[in-house]
């Protein structure tokens, strides 16, 4: 049919050759670009649609990462979209909550990066490369953190009944009780999962370690501690915290609770031995942000630490924070 139809295309083309007879002969060959693009697209597709990762590659990567990585190190899979495969192949022992839902990178002295096809995590850009191992399409990279700040104590690790008391303080005070039950989860929009073991406060509120999706949908390991609203305060009393020279933390709300930027700001204050150490304020739209207070007088001591969380309006204040002493 193409042959038959070719005559019909003549009228379209009839005047074109004359017009295309440009002074520069090369211009007559412009149609080659069409052929080149078509061929290039075809070849690129054939190359790109081939699988490049073999199971053996992942096995070798896992073995290398296990050998090279210390418990205090970070493990990262790059680029980010490979992460689900990385977690499946490397397993929970390597892809711990502290690593995959980290508050920041400053707490890790070294990192092992599993990079596919030359990728490199933006968070590790300033880190010094110590060594690289090629495994199939992967590069397993060892990196040293130039801005490592060791942790003395991690408040999130205290979010259990033996180390923490939780209460709502206000016109009437209620202790929140630690109970073991079923975890609470839901579909999109539910918010962070309530773990099976948690502090139960009144009106369905709860306090516990969880993982929250921040404003960028990144996972953050933190203590879920929604303020009650009004004049009431949620008080968390950490029994024995080892202090350093600084108290550093991050806080945010669950993404859908702060992305509309319509909620009341949240205030968190820290005190120890009757002295205020500092207070931070979180406003909707800030996402996962840092706060820090100097605690030189407490450095080297172990003492009680109280965090108080409040907001004028408690509606959808799905607040989560983490703090470490350094």
């Amino acid at each position: 049919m193409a042959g038959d139809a070719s005559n019909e295309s003549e009228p379209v083309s009839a005047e074109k050759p004359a017009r295309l007879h440009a002074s520069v002969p090369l211009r007559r060959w412009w149609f080659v670009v069409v052929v080149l693009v078509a061929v290039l697209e075809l070849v690129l597709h054939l190359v790109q649609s081939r699988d490049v990762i073999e199971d053996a590659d992942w096995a070798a990567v896992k073995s290398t990462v296990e050998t090279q990585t210390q418990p205090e190190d970070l493990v990262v899979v790059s680029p980010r979209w490979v992460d689900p495969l990385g977690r499946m192949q490397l397993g929970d022992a390597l892809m711990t909550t502290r690593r995959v839902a980290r508050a920041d990178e400053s707490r890790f002295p070294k990192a092992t990066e599993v990079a596919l096809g030359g990728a490199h995590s933006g968070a590790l850009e300033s880190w010094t490369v110590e060594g690289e191992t090629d495994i199939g399409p992967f590069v397993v990279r060892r990196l040293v953190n130039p801005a490592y700040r060791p942790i003395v104590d991690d408040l999130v690790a205290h979010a259990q009944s033996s180390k923490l008391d939780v209460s709502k303080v206000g016109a009437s005070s209620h202790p929140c009780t630690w109970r073991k039950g079923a975890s609470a989860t839901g579909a999109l929009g539910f918010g962070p999962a309530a773990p099976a073991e948690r502090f139960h406060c009144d009106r369905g509120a709860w306090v516990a370690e969880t993982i929250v999706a921040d404003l960028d949908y990144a996972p953050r390991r933190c203590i879920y501690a929604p303020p009650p609203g009004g004049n009431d305060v949620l008080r968390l009393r950490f029994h024995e915290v080892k202090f350093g020279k600084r108290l550093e933390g991050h806080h945010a709300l669950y993404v859908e609770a702060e992305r509309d930027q319509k909620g009341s700001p949240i205030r968190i204050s820290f005190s120890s031995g009757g002295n205020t150490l500092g207070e931070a304020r979180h406003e909707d739209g800030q996402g996962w942000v840092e706060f820090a207070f100097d605690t030189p007088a407490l450095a080297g001591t172990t003492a009680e630490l109280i965090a108080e969380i409040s907001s004028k309006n408690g509606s959808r204040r799905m607040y989560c924070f983490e703090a470490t002493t350094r």
Partner: protein
Amino acid sequence: MKKLFQFPGSVGWRDQVIGALLATLVVTSLLVTADSLGFARDEGFYFRAAAQYAQWFGALFSDPAKAFDRAFIDRIWGYNHEHPALIKSLFALSWLGLNQKWHILRDPSDAFRFPAMVLSGIAVWVTYLFGARVYSRRAGVVAAALLFLTPRIFYHAHLACFDLPIVAMWTLCIYVYWRSIERGGLGWAVVAGVVYGLTLETKHNAWILPAVFLPHMLLLIRDRLRSDLKRHVIAVPASLVAMAIIGPVVFWALWPWMWFDTAARLREYFDFHFNHVYYNMEFLGTNYFEAPSPRGYMPLMLLATVPSITLLLFAIGAGSQLREGGRAGISWLRGHRSDSSTSTSTSTSTNGRPSYPNVLFGLAVLASISPWLFTKTPIFGGTKHWITAYPFMALLAAHGLERALAAMDSVAAKVPTWGKRGMRFAVILVVVAGPALISFHAHPFGLSSYVPFVGGTRGGARLGLNRQFWGFTTQSASEQYLAEHAPKGATVFIHDTAWDSWGRMIEEGRVRPDLRGVGAPGQAMFSIIHHELHMNEVEYQVWVAYGTRAPVYVVTHDEVPVVSIYRHP
């Protein structure tokens, strides 16, 4: 006999046969590949709507009085009344006839999907006819192929949704309007009015069509416009008058929900679409969920999802038309009116006046994509929002290829005719081969697929472009993992899959029938996570509830995660 297969110069019944053959090929390829494509979220709603509307069609024949009773109509047609009734009615009738009564299609889902598949075929058919009439038969075939071999078109063409139906009706409506201009007469005008009504009754995109027709009409009547204005009488094409009168009547007549409280319900319908909820959509690593939408979304998604060769040819075709149109426009402004009618951007109608089909194509593209130049327009549906542009992009691309082949012929003057034919065939083959391979390879992950020049599926993931929506990949998760590994009666958190879609997958054995869907990860033995940026929060819930970050299986396309499956320890 030989005469039967000889193609005359003018387009005629043989071209309808070619169009029908192309359409048959389209429908067959869709039916053959439909089994591996799970049910999208919206399909679940339309399956339910169609099954419900089928009751009304039953009553229409068994108890007509009841069928016209307001309470009955409201009960039946009240469901999913944010969309017109035509396509869902076709789903219902197809299901009643092809599945329930005659058992031609074994699975109800195939029967529900069949009308949209047929309309996909019609879209290709009309595109061929348009191309054959305006450029050449070869251009018609190329345009038809480039349209169908756009990965997103191939994906949406499978679904019992309105996207390919509106492509078909939009294209048909413009075609009929153009034929009415070409041929004149009341008959074509009435057909145009009826087709416009059917288009309005297909999807709300049809309300944009005046933005195609009115500027085109102004072009047609520009020479006599000044004298018409002086006489206070503007002579407009009869087809436009018919569309304005017959169109809304057909729209109303075919939608029982609109028969009562028409003004209020019409207002509700427009309100729904003018103030549509902003759903989530990832673009360049950012989740957009409210205005302002990114201005770069439409252009970049066009570049990233339409095969690059199609876009290049479209640019050549559109560019050449713009150049010629510009020259003709300047001539007209200078008063050399005869020049405009001899330009190749026009086509002379049987009544001797130019009908400007290329202008119509350009307007059809512009009208389809223009809403996404505004930041208030939501982007949650991805490329399907401007899907009506694609037939006309394909037509202009086919024209671009004609120009390229003409250029090739001009440098191959000394090559014998058979050699030229071979060269043309080879070029056409290589132009179509890429889009064909990309489209078929993408199936059933059409929404995860991106073109090779942005790095393919991996490139899309790297750029932070959406990998899917509507939760249809649950079927792939079931086929690849759950069918073999889930214990009998296991509970599965079905995530973004609509309950009606899940129910139909169970009913048709696409998902193992003993598996029980649940609405929260904590209640399930297995949780499915459809990878979309805003769905991450559900995955983190699974980490907490299950105490693991490691999925037991990941469904991938070109090694890019599409679905993760977790097992409760």
